[in-house]
């Protein structure tokens, strides 16, 4: 435990000092941290899922508080909580299934089962209640009638396993933790692999001789464009340089290294160039539940210009960027002001500030993020495919459980 605690503190400090930036990197670190938290967490015999949830929540709250703007942290914590709940539920239902089988022959087993998880409730009620809270009826589940099959592919095997092991208390305890870690591993895998999943769809969206505008530096965008390039599409990319952080220059460098025709433009030329652009592709920092996007600063300007010229505005986002929150005043509340020194050299202006007695004040505003309202977004491309902004809330319901929305 102590070493977990120390890694948590270390990570919190990193987040606080903005040593780790970028939603992908933070998501990865967070989920790895949570995995170790879970694996080191001592699970009591009774109500082990709740114990895990509490532990993860406690760490999650620290992490979120460390950098509330980095929404990916919260997203990942919620995802892990969701995994725990799902695993717990699947185990319970499996146990119930086993229970039903064993019910007639052996009463002890029934007692055991009840002793483990749900001593007071009848199995059917528990399962139904759990299902209703965890999984709002999606079209798929309604049609197939098999709630577990879609999102938890290993349920059947674990169910088969658990059936044989229901009698063993300790093994069942280990089972939950094991399954959760399995699930978290899969989440890690998913976060790491979301680029490829998104990039696979590039060919469907980019045609020959296209002119694409992008801004900010996003690995997803890079992979997306390169995937299209590898498929022998030849197109031209305009990159807005993204002052004052100049991440566009980074992106341009990478794109050129991969052999794409790249033109770096100033941010102010976005409106001038948009009339010749076929598509705007950006990587999101976070996607809100209403379909709004938080992206690198300057994105809203590009989105407005794209709207004006009816240019599709496409947002690439891995599923770890889907945030189940509805934004309120996101330009201010979900934003971060960086150092003024990126814009103005203080030395330059110190003289004119104290020259006259009645000299004016000088503020420098240097925000990091920009919010794009959903009506400006044409399409989201996530690792599960393309979606409308209006569909985001539904997608989010698949990934998070309603209990965790407020941590």
């Amino acid at each position, binding site marked *: 435990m102590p070493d977990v605690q120390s890694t948590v503190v270390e990570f919190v400090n990193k987040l606080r000092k903005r040593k780790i930036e970028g939603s992908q990197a933070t998501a990865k670190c967070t989920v790895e941290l949570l995995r170790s938290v879970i694996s080191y967490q001592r699970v009591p015999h009774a109500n082990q899922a709740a114990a895990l949830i509490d532990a993860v929540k406690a760490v999650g709250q620290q992490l979120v508080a460390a950098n509330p703007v980095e929404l990916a942290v919260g997203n990942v914590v919620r995802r892990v909580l969701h995994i725990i709940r799902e695993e717990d539920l699947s185990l319970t239902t499996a146990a119930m299934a086993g229970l039903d089988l064993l019910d007639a022959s052996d009463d002890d087993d029934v007692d055991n089962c009840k002793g483990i998880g749900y001593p007071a409730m009848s199995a059917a009620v528990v399962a139904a209640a759990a299902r209703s809270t965890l999984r709002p009826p999606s079209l798929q589940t309604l049609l197939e009638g098999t709630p577990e099959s879609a999102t938890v592919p290993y349920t059947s095997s674990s169910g088969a396993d658990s059936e044989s092991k229901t009698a063993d208390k300790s093994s069942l305890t280990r089972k939950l933790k094991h399954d959760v870690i399995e699930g978290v591993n899969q989440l890690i895998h998913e976060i790491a692999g979301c680029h490829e999943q998104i990039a696979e769809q590039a060919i469907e969206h980019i045609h020959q001789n296209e002119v694409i505008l992008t801004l900010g530096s996003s690995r997803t965008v890079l992979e997306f464009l390169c995937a299209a390039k590898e498929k022998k599409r030849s197109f031209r990319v305009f990159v807005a340089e993204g002052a004052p952080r100049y991440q566009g220059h*980074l992106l341009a460098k990478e794109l050129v290294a991969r052999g794409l025709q790249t*033109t770096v433009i100033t941010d102010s030329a976005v409106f001038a160039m948009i009339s010749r652009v076929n598509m705007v592709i950006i990587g999101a920092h976070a996607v809100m539940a209403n379909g709004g996007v938080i992206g690198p*600063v300057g994105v809203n300007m590009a989105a407005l210009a794209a709207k004006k010229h009816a240019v599709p505005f496409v947002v690439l986002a891995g599923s770890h960027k889907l945030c189940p929150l509805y934004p309120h005043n996101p330009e201010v509340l979900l934003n971060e002001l960086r150092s003024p020194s990126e814009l103005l050299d203080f030395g330059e202006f110190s003289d004119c500030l104290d020259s006259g007695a009645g000299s004016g004040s000088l503020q420098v505003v240097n925000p990091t993020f920009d919010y794009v309202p959903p009506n400006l977004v044409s399409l989201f491309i996530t690792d599960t495919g393309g979606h409308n902004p209006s569909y985001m809330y539904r997608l989010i319901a698949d990934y998070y459980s309603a209990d965790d929305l407020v941590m």
Partner: protein
Amino acid sequence: MDTRRGALAVPKVRRVGFFTSAIEPTQDSSQRPNRSQSGPVEATTSSSPLSDSPSGNLISPVLIPPSRHHSDNLTSRAVAAAAAPVPVPGPAAFRRYLAHDRGLNVGSYNPPDSLLGTSPPSSNGEFSEDSVSLFGFQRSDSAKLSASFPNGGFDLTLAVRAPQEPEPKIATVSASEVTKKIAEVSGKSESVTTKPQKEKEPKSLKDKTTKAERRAIQEAQRAAKAAAKGEGNRRADESGKANPGKAAKKPQPKKERLPATSSVSVKTAVAVEKEKRMDVPQTQMQYDDKSRVEKAKKRAVVEQTESKNKVELFLHLPQYERGNQLPDLSSNIFILDTIHHAVYKVGLQHLAGDISGDNARCIAMLQAFQEAIKDYTTPPMKDLTMDLTTKINGYVSFLIECRPLSMSMGNAIRFLKNQIRKLPVNLSEPEAKASLCSDIGRFIDEKIILADKVIVQHAVTKIRDGEVLLTYGFSCVVEMILLYAHEIGKKFRVVIVDSRPNLEGQKLLRRLVTRGLDCTYTHINAISYIMREATRVFLGASSIFSNGTLYSKVGTACVAMVANAFSVPVIVCCEAYKFHERVLLDSICTNELGDPDAVASIPSFSTKAKHLKTMDNNKNLQFLNLMYDSTPSEYISMIVSDYGMIPPTSIPVIVREYRREHLLL
């Protein structure tokens, strides 16, 4: 069509009245006594406007072909007869001939002059006008082609002419076809005439083409024009009412200046069309036209090296390697005698970027011209008007080499040329020079300095206490407004939005902060963040086009767009001399490219993003440094000009009224 023409005719009538200086050159007045006929002239000097034609000459003048070109003569007459009941084929071909010749003689950057040849007379059909402007003035391929191959144009025109000769009716039946071809032809001829716009040596073009060739071209053009006239006249007849009036209004002074008058009169005749197009050649050369670029290069004083890695969309704009030519140029400032040293200095300042801001550039240029005119002496055997115009043209093309002119500078140059053209002939040289200098001084005072003061007075009324005013980049008018509002005790806050690479906003920020204003500084990417605070947006302008499009520093459109999205009123401050009668839709066709290295190099404090210049030679990587962009008029709430506070839709009105005054000034 008829109604349209009728409607169009009215403003034309009004306008012509202000072209006081011209008379119609007529030669063969016996044939058609009350109409002017522009006779064929071997060269401008050989024939002279013998008789001052009375009123109606403009409208339906007859082409009287030169005796030498009988075939042309016949053709045109036949065509005319077939085409219209009133056989009044226009003298367009002749005009072209004249203008062409003059263009060659003058051989300089003189858009109105060089254009004269192509602009069909007012009686010409709408279609042919349009087509001419379509094919000829947009520097289409045919124009380029013929620019490089004058003979090509000739062949084509022959082809056009061929079917007309035996059966003139064809011309009328397939009138539109013919006019189209003619448009092509005129495009060619236009390019021939406008070609010298960048020439230093007036006669260079003349030297290049042999006499016979030129004659052939002219013949062909004449024939083509005659056909066009036939077509045009028919329509002209229908809307003929306006024309006599127009002609009647035309005053007829100045018979004395024989060599000049012929061309001047041509000018008058096509005043309306000319005015529409006057400015066209003043726009930048299309740099994707290799042959013309080559030619321009040969004449150039400034040896600019074209940068290799250009953005495909902007091949039509010049992009030069920066910074290598300056030392050379500044060393031979005293050696060069074709360019006046004051102009030379201003040119270098433009090149180096020492003067920025449209007003400053314009004033610097005008003052340099003023000095140049002061030092000017008319060479013996030359006419002051023509020679000075040539000189000015040379200066202008030098300035263009240094940096493409801004729209406002184009307007100022046009004003100066008009003044030169309108100089009374009986004026002695010192008087003329003094008059020009005072005209220039007055232009600077009235159109720029005084206009700014008026704008400040107007705009200040729009600032209320407690407001947050957002401005973009650096505009000296906006600066004056803010300072004045602060002076008179208004309490407000200023948000200065800035953008790379010039960071002009820092200059404004410094000035405002030292004067005690409360400022917030940010970069253009944060515009959506900061816009919620703003209550007004004040923008400067480089030019406003007659469709209400604001042509200004790049990024202005972004600011205006975001302001519009946040429902913040956008107030544009622009002197009326910057209004321009061109129209513009996007920021691609007309623009200026800055130094790409300025985009490539980024400040040292951002350590993460490394300098991209190391990859400069990579073919795949380009940097684009646009200088201007165009803001659609729907984003502009109000334009504050020296004519008051107007909506963008009023720009064309102001342009028309202003132009009138402009010419009178």
